């Protein structure tokens, strides 16, 4: 059985224009051999969920530095679930207080990476958690 190519989407929901981190991650995923759909800043959760389905990605990485993650991250998970796409893994990163972790995990976010997380650790998490065989 041939290996599947891992496809990921990197997106920034909400009113947050700080995309340095998201761009670095996109580049890092590319170098890890993934196909990366980069969709940029200022997106609604609706746009993100629709794009994730159209692109048939394995994983959506959300980046948020504005503090709105409590609203925006769970909304993406919920929209994917409604569209029968809950098999798409959602992870998040950015300025996220530890106090919010439980709430986000319960909402269906599978992993959270905050400042200090290494690029390698994020790639490794994806490799370990996304199956490349059908």
């Amino acid at each position: 059985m041939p290996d599947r190519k891992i496809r990921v989407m990197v997106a920034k929901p909400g009113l947050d224009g700080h995309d340095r981190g998201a761009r670095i991650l996109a580049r890092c995923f590319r170098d890890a051999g993934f196909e990366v759909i980069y969709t940029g800043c200022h997106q609604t959760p609706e746009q993100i969920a629709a794009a994730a389905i159209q692109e048939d990605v394995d994983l959506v990485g959300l980046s948020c530095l504005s503090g709105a993650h409590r609203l925006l991250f769970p909304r993406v998970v919920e929209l994917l679930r409604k569209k029968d796409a809950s098999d798409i893994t959602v992870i998040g990163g950015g300025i996220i207080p530890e106090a919010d972790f439980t709430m986000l995990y319960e909402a269906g976010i599978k992993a959270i990476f905050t400042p200090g997380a290494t690029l390698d650790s994020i790639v490794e998490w994806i490799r370990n958690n996304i199956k490349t065989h059908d």
Partner: protein
Amino acid sequence: METIKKICEGNVRAASRLIRDLEDKLPHARPRLRQLFKHTGKSFIIGITGSPGAGKSTLTDALIAELRKLSKTVGVLAVDPTSPFTGGAILGDRVRMLRHAEDEGVFIRSLATRGALGGLSQAAGDAIHVMEAMGKDVIIVETVGIGQQEIDIINHAHSVIVVMVPGMGDEIQSMKAGILEIADVFAINKADRAGAKQLHTELASLLNSAPQSAGAWRPPIVMIENLYEPLTFVEQTAELAQKVAEHYAYLQESGQLDKRTERRAMMQINDALRACIMEPVIDNLTASGELQYLAEKIKNREIDPYSVAEEISKRFLKSGGINDIDKK
């Protein structure tokens, strides 16, 4: 079958998954394509090509908007390059088309080239079929940013838009063969910049110098100015959409559509043969280690690649090899 039915009903999730299975060459994908084929062939396929940064995605976005005004459903395949070093890719064309993300009449799918050299990806032809089966009225195929020779798009599209930008100067001369020959419509994008008029003049004189036959299509040149004047931009991209529609009407009336469809069919046979004969043979030789062994022998000049190919064709083709086919 369930998947086929879903795709024909326009289900995005099923369609996108099949495109992915085709890209990943999963064994069940090709039989599904076989079943889908009878539902294809009704869409108008527009190719859009040009150098990196010329504005292909931005113009694609504008074309989508025009087509949606006419209530046409639209499929978009946007191709970006795969890294030859890591196999990874950044697929960023969607960024220019975000306003259509939630429109259910628009399905945008990014493809990575995965080593294909003609400006598209190997799965692009298959992906077009999937979108056709979904019943999309129009399918826009955006190539990677190209140089002069990556013109695979002509084997897939009915109408090809070549996007050019001013400031590339004398290159127009060297571009005579290849890219300039495939245009059905020229778009001079960023036409507010210096050199746009000159580019228009040069293109026009190039078209004038080509032999003209009565009733033949002459590629129109559409000037498109910058985005900071949205009204101008909308007017000019509407003109672009109009010219493409005129070209399609011309194809239908002149009988050229038939020829282009036939050209596409030739390409489909070619692609299918490759997938059906070449790939399994190569996979087989790779798995058994024979490919490596033969490469070693050729490297040491113990054997030549031509005899190797002949011997392999004899072994895998029942008729007794390629030479035998020649004789028949």
